[in-house]
């Protein structure tokens, strides 16, 4: 992914996270916990399972729809980060060539089944993670993590990084663009130019840190970054986590598609 593409994708995801919908208003802790439970549930399925994973799509679909997050945006990002998983999973058919029948008259090698399972799991976990970020501002996630017990020093580090991320990306972009103009069409540039670019950015970063520190001291900083927010869990947050958790447990231990299918066939006569 090119620098510009990554930068604008980041910016878009960041702006989406500040919107105001029912999902955005949920407590960050609730969303983090629900997403982690989701990931654990999905990942706990055996390697050949596909059908029972399908009901899990309801979670990202609902969150995305209720949170007003463009579906295409999420889908494109899922595809964009899939190479490693595809590369590894793609070798499954090679190493696992037991033949199984997945439907009357249709047989494939078990490796394809497990590969497909990996892809489904991948789509589920990545979209859920993206939707967490898209519906919760990053500072909100950090506050939630702090309340969940992560050390204050680390949380403050995350917040500082986030704050200056876009500032530094812009600085980097200016430097990269200048370099591209000087390369006269040679794609990318050699390591020597890269070292100079990164070195310059590094020095500017250190200088900036000095100025920020001066500004902090000027406003009375004495070592602890103060915080004031006290967020309490509301009923809606608890209901959300309970409902999500319950749904995941149900779909994990009851084969929902098969049950539905049996019901339908039973009804059909």
């Amino acid at each position, binding site marked *: 992914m090119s620098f510009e593409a990554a930068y604008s994708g980041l910016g878009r995801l960041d702006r989406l996270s500040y919107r105001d919908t029912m999902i955005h208003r949920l407590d960050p802790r609730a969303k983090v916990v629900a997403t982690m439970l989701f990931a654990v549930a999905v990942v706990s399925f055996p390697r050949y399972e596909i059908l029972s994973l399908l009901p899990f799509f309801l979670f990202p679909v609902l969150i995305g729809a209720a949170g007003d997050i463009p579906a295409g945006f999420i889908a494109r990002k899922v595809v964009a980060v899939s190479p490693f998983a595809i590369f590894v999973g793609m070798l499954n058919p090679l190493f696992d060539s037991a033949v199984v029948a997945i439907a009357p008259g249709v047989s494939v090698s078990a490796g394809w089944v497990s590969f497909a399972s990996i892809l489904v799991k991948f789509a589920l976990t990545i979209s859920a993670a993206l939707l967490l970020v898209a519906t919760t501002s990053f500072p909100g996630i950090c506050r939630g993590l702090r309340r969940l017990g992560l050390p204050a020093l680390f949380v403050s580090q995350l917040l500082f990084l986030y704050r200056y991320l876009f500032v530094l990306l812009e600085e980097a972009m200016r430097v990269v663009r200048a370099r591209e103009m000087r390369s006269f069409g040679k794609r990318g540039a050699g390591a020597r130019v890269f070292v100079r670019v990164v070195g310059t950015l590094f020095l500017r970063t250190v200088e900036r840190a000095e100025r920020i520190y001066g500004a902090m001291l000027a406003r009375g900083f004495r*070592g602890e970054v103060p915080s004031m927010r006290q967020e309490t869990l509301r009923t809606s947050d608890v209901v959300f986590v309970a409902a999500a958790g319950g749904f995941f447990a149900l779909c994990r231990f009851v084969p929902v598609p098969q049950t539905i299918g049996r019901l339908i066939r039973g009804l059909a006569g």
Partner: protein
Amino acid sequence: MHMADALLSPAVGGAFWAGTVGAIGYASKKLKERLDDRRIPLMGVLGAFIFASQMINFTIPGTGSSGHLGGGMILAVLLGPHAAFLVMASVLAVQALFFADGGLLALGCNIWNLGIYPCFVAWPLIYRPLAGDGRSPRRILVASLASGVVGLQLGALSVVLQTSLSGVAALPFGAFLLIMQPIHLAIGIVEGFVTAGVIHYVRAARPEILDGTASSPPPGAGVSLRNLSIGFLALAIVAGGALSWLASVRPDGLEWSIGKVTGKGGLPEREHEVPLALKSLQKRTAFLPGYGFKPPANEAKPKEEAPSWPNIDAGASISGLIGGFLVLVVTFGIGWAIRAFRGRSAP
């Protein structure tokens, strides 16, 4: 090189998360004890810097492929291991969240793989002794190369272990190792050069930045390069031996990859795998699945069983397909309906 949720089992993911959270807690505590206030904004902005510079690629001459900066080593040189680890962890966390690099469960593994080895192993044990007082560009280059290579080799080994222990991917341990290690050797060398280059650049422009942070002279500042190289070589031999032993615990994988290389084909292995795969498939299509936590090591032990074809109840599988199809239709239908409804009521 980033681990993904889909390749992970809950047990492995959970274990590494526990380890990572522990490490974050430990590093935070140690840092609090002797933190110079001015490090707080510095760590934050450096995190943003690492993030930004990882998005800049450069082409490696001759290969046409692109390389980039890892950052762990420069951070460790500037901030010390604990702060460097926290910064790397924060960078990886933001990447996991905003770029979906792997997923939330895999984040624990990724922070471990890309943070622990450079900051707590490669830097103190390799970079610091080799770099000495940090004034000789040659020593810095050697130190950067060695620590870069070792850090990445350990990280790559970690990924392979995590994947194999999870048992989701069928790629055998040995084969995966044979793919990952050489690639990361090359990456490590490139990163080593780039790291040395940046350190040199910074030292030339503003030497006090790098000097000021060394609170005490590094241990072994006077140790000769040769003695250290010998020690390092010994370590490599021991590590290599341990790796081979580990690989031999899974003989099917290693034999398969060796067989592939020598052209002998892997049929004997496949015969063992067939009954096992079928057996497990039968288990899984049974009514109540729930054996997802079993590591594949159990299944890989060759057992003498007559191969039998899967006894899948055709009726059950049709129900499954119908039900599955219905589930998808309903799920995405709900999503579409909510969006359409919102679109109509929006101004």
